[in-house]
């Protein structure tokens, strides 16, 4: 659902979406926290381009994979929190499966060289 047939080759875009979904699997977060979490959990390897993060979030929201709600952040400020919808969870599951197949395949290709 997240990665339609037409977007198969759009690795970067799709990957960011997938990472966002994965990040939100544990619970609602605001944009900044998402960026930080991706960064931290990839040991600083994946640095989300912050300018691209928000359009991705809004796009996912429009697709109905995320829900957004204004809440209060850890430092008591108004922040926009994103949460997975049921559709978002489903998309995450499909993506995870597809991703693991893809990464194994790529690893094979790279390993055989």
């Amino acid at each position, binding site marked *: 659902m997240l990665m339609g047939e037409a977007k198969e080759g759009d690795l970067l875009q799709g990957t960011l979406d997938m990472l966002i979904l994965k990040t939100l699997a544990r619970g609602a977060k605001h944009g*900044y926290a998402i*960026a930080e979490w991706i960064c931290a959990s990839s040991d600083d390897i994946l640095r989300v381009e912050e*300018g691209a993060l*928000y*359009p991705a979030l809004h796009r996912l929201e429009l*697709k*109905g994979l995320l829900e957004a709600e*204004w809440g209060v952040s850890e430092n008591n400020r108004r922040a*926009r929190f994103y949460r997975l919808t049921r559709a978002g969870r489903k998309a995450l599951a499909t993506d995870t499966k597809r991703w693991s197949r893809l990464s194994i395949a790529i690893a094979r290709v790279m390993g055989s060289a």
Partner: protein
Amino acid sequence: MTGWNQLRLRLRALFHRRDFERDVEEEIAFHLDMREHSLQGQGMDASVARAAAQARFGNATRTSETLRELRSWGWIEGMWQDVRFALRQMRLNRGFSVAAILPLALAIGCIAAVFSLVDAVLFRPTGVADPSRVAAVYTFSRAQNRYLSDSYPDFRDIRGLDGVLDSAAAYIATQFNNVRLTQGLESMNVNLVTGDYCRAAGIVTALGRPLVPEDDRPGAAPVALASYPLWENRFQRSPSILGSTVSIGGISFTIVGVMPKGYQGMLLDWYSDSSFWVPLEQFHGLFPADYENRRDGQFLMMLARLRPGVGIERFQAALDVLASRVADPLGKSSNPDYRLLALPASQARFWPAYRAATVRFLWLLVAVAATALAIACFNLASLLLARAAARQQEIAARLALGAGRLRLVRQFLVENGVLAACACALSVPVAMGLAAWYPGVQITQGFTMTVKLDADWRALGLGMAAGLLTSILSGIVPAIRAARGDVVKRRKAGRASLQDLLSAAQVACAMTALAGAVLLGENIRHLGSAPLGYDTHGVLLASVNLVTGLNPSLDEAERISRALLAEIRRQAPGAALAWQALPSRFRMVLDVQRESDSGKRTAILFNLVSDGYFELLKIPVIEGRGIMPGDGRKSQPVMVLNRSAAALLWPGENPVGRRLRVNAEPVAREVVGVVEDTRYRPLSETQPPMPYVFLPIFQFTSLLPFEIHVRTPNEPLAFAKTLRQIVAQVVPDAPAYDFQTLDNFAQAGLMQMRVAAQAARAVSLLGLLLAVAGIFASGAYRVARQKKEIAIRIAIGAEPRRVIRSFAARGLWIGIAGACLGLMPAAWGAALLRSAVPGVESGGFSLYVGAGAILALAAAAAALAAASRIAEVQPADVLRVQ
């Protein structure tokens, strides 16, 4: 699901625009603050941290722009802005808007009304189910080259055809003037139908049951179907209509069902607004004696439903075989002249003879309306161009500020579209008004036709679409020109501008319409003043139908009619009866044959008249005598010829005293007199001298309705009330109807032409007015723009009069160019007219020169009026300002 979610979010962003934008800003600000905080936490200096956070985020403005675009409505939103801008422009330039919208609204209204007429007359379903499988059958006489109704034996033969037909029905529509439903006597149209009628027409009743073959057997209980409008208006759609009784022609019918809504039957121009359908068998007595076996009793219409898979060609082939076996109308020999013709339902909406003329008349109206639309569109384009010129500064400023040219074109097109949409909205009342006026117009040359035009959105939509499309198309060039920002630059003095071309095009359209209007007007004048040969002035007509009223025997009918005539003459001595008032649309003929010959028969148009008829109409009797009071059923059968008939039958001889056989009458008739030739056919037809015969009305062997003619000293209609009372007193069950003056009756045939002429006249006037206004406006604009040049010319010694003349010449040239441009469409329109309206002459040289001269002069006058402002130019003032 996803789509719904998107729509919800987009709608929220649209309706809570402010909130949404604040949210976007806040979300980004929050992120930047958090990052700044975190960097400070890592020991970065406060002033640097902010910049670093922003650098890491990238272009925040662009991001918020992207977020906004995600929820935008794309081009729709831009369009909406354009629409709002266009509406504001319209409000600001009221004069411009009215000048653009009003002609357009008129034109679109006209074309929509014409479309709905065309639709109603030619295309709209008449209620016959699956009409592609239905055919009408006519008898066709090759010798007379005309279509006739069918006889009962023909119907019986066709119904019996093997393997071709699903069902076949015969019917006859007529008016009964003695229908008793809930209140007194009423006039209603009634269809008398054979048993399979409902099956052949594919009728699913709205209530109750259809008519079935058992209802049409001798001795069956009289039952009737009511029309839907009757059920609606008289019974408020109550089921209690079933079982109610209605008396028609003295027979009491039980209503067993209601026809479906909108059912009009097959023929639209023959009493199509019928109120009842009853079995033919019940009115056995109305028809010629022994009609079941007489092939000369051609009075039935036929409706045949083909079997699935059978094409009309196969049906026609079967009819051809059938016709070849049938003897001639008089039953004497086989008749090569005789043919049965099947017409598909789509072509059987009129009496076949009237179809072609009707279609051409409709085409004529479409052409007139299209001309009006073209004129309005040229007007619109020319106004848009003028406005583009006036908005040069605004356009230049917007281009300088970075607006794309395409964006500007779009905006101009939207402005144009908004104007067109307003015109469409305004055209609705125009179309409705015109549509309401139609039913009074005689559409066909045959019987009057009932056209139902209630709220026809299909045609209205089509008309509007045509109007919208053409008006937007006509805005494209001005829009592109305007967006190029070079409207003014391109206009060098002396070169014809696009606006001048548009004015010329309007003149051309006006020329076309004017030529048509003149031709039609000439034709009406010519035909309307054609000598009739009798005096129609001061004569009152009223119809009486004893047949459907009393169905008397021939002897009774003679007695009643004579009593009626005598009673009327006590009040008004100048009174007579005739089967048909002249000029007549009927084309019924008699077969006459000189008693001395055995071979040649001639078909001659005829009328049945009482004594006093020739005297009343002042038709001169040139030989022998006219019809006398003594010419009745008991006396010697006689007839009167007109001059042409006498010349045809006995060239160079006096026919008085000779004998003629008429149809299958047992005794030959004696010619007792000859009257002068007069006009017999409607004024709308050209009529060469034609043979015509008169028979005494009481001596005819079948009963027909008749027209009472009364000559009155004063206004004829003032006598109508008295006449109605006399008829009601003598024959209570056959009330008089259709009161009118003979003057009106004679002119009625020209109605169609009058409508066309009025429409063409109105359109030519519209075109001329708009062209003149356009020429004046552009002339005035040119004077205003070239004030300096003019001032210099005058200052260095040019005479103001010469300058004025040079400006006015331009208008003259536009007019001449337009007239030349209009020659071709005008000639084409004249050709269309000649084919659509009988009697129209081709205009000839003088018409085109005359019309062209009028238009060119009008154009020149408009330009002169505009240029005369030059006289007000004071060179000193103008140059001082500069």
